[in-house]
């Protein structure tokens, strides 16, 4: 069922869809960045598609991607786009699902926002911006959502160390932890 949707999409937008695929029952279509809004609008408005309900939006950072058992050509390197932004859509009426994936580069991590088409993507894109630093052009209110405004960097990027801490408030007036002070002196 969903396979037909992907095929119809590829037939309708032959230049926008770079490739299609199916992974473990999920139908995926890779879309060129500039055509994303046109493709998404068609998926939403065409009565045969009727993807009325958004599911999620997230991003994959390929920086450390070295899959085991796969040829080196599938590993990530600098010539490939670093990020893939995924939009999962669902049709309540037709019971179909499709995932749109858009590749964006590290140098220019931006793509058009879909928040105007589905209001649910407003917060989801803010989350993706917050965690991966992807800029969504045309988003009504692109702010951090989980983290605070002063936060530096994007924590879910692979080059953000897991143990790194960024406390928001530094309290010089608090008593010094004697254990920490002793540690500092020994160095």
């Amino acid at each position: 069922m969903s396979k037909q949707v992907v095929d119809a999409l590829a037939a309708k937008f032959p230049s926008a869809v770079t490739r299609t695929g199916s992974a473990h029952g999920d139908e995926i279509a890779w879309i060129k960045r500039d055509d994303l809004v046109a493709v998404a609008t068609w998926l939403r408005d065409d009565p045969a598609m009727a993807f009325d309900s958004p599911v999620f939006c997230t991003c994959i950072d390929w920086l450390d991607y070295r899959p085991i058992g796969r040829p080196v050509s599938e590993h990530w390197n600098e010539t490939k786009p670093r990020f893939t932004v995924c939009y999962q859509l669902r049709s309540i009426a037709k019971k179909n699902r499709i995932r749109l994936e858009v590749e964006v580069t590290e140098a220019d991590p931006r793509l058009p926002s879909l928040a105007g088409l589905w209001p649910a993507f407003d917060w989801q894109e803010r989350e993706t911006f917050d965690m991966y630093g992807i800029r969504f052009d045309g988003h009504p209110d692109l702010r951090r959502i989980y983290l605070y405004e002063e936060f530096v960097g994007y924590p879910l990027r692979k080059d953000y160390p897991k143990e790194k801490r960024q406390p928001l408030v530094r309290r010089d007036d608090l008593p010094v932890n004697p254990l920490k002070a002793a540690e500092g002196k020994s160095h």
Partner: protein
Amino acid sequence: MADAQSLKQLVLGRKDVQDLSDNEAELPPELMTVNMGPSHPAMHGTVRIVLTVDGEKIVKSDIQPGYLHRCFEKESEHATYTQVFPYTDRLNYVSPMINNVGWAMAVEKLMDLTGKLPKRAEYIRVIVSEMSRITDHATCIGASAMELGAFTPFLYLLKAREWLYELLEKVSGARLTHSYARVGGVSKDLPLDFDADLTRCLDRIDGVVVDVEKMLLSNKIFYDRVVGIGAMSKEDAIKTGCVGPIARSCGVDYDVRRDFPYSVYPELEFDVPLGTTGDCYDRYLVRLEELRQSARILRQCLKQIPDGEIMSDDHRVALPPKKDTYNTIESMIRHFKHIMDGVRVPAGEGYAFVEGGNGELGFFIVSDGTGRPYKAYCRSPSFVHLSTAGQLIHDHYIADVVPIFGMINMIGGECDK
């Protein structure tokens, strides 16, 4: 030291203590900004709302989640697939079993194990999921009623929830953070006499539900506080991505268990209750009916559950039998690799979803062939539902924020990840 007269002026804000007129012209005409939260007694979890109010009416709101952000996704990327189960317990901490099952199903999808699990394991997963759904809805209804002043239904429902928690403790060993499911099955079999315990528990819960219904259904105070409050149209519910009891109360006929059936749900009979107006009262009614439907599913499961294995025999996910681990070097190495390196999942990506307490709970995993997820994303229903709250509370009074938030049932751990 202020004299008595000026103190009264300061406290009451009136020129004269006797002046009790509430003249509209004397009220401040400008808009006011009020901070609600992050720690507010009527909030489920911590969320901050910056309200702009005209008198008591909300004209603008900015909802700021994130106070309970614990880096679920970043931590998961550094843990083995099995080590993620305790983290999922802490997502929706009112129905942890459903999160466990959701994560297990996502990993199994990438390993092409979907539908290949032993029947008994699938039934156990459905049983614990439905028990969790009852605890989730009972907490939501009880807490919302309490916030509106009805304390007795809260106590009744929490008592019922405690019976189920006790039973889940017998099953998994932990009252709240169960970590019960495993990739390929569940960690332990059901305890002895589980059938009788659960049947007795369900009978008592039926009584509680009737009591609560009697107390709330035509309760004038409760009714006036929730009818017509926070209403959402069917179209809005669909395009804002709402699912679960909230979307169903708006009339969206969609339930993952029925429309994208997983596990053994196709073998079970249940109804999907639908609301019409999409206000807080309908959300309450839908949840109340789902309590009954979950009990109905549980009774069928107890009748139909077969004997058999509780873990897949696929050697990629199952630990070798203890006897072999201690006696053969191959099994010992396999055991060691399984624990230290984790379940090896073939490279690929996949999204699996279940019907959680609040709606479609999904996990999107990208694997690079190692025992740790390359990326783990949680599609949390609470986050999506909270994003609609700004629209729901618009043009309502400050007092209405409480029932609207109560019935959205935003769970901090799940929303903030």
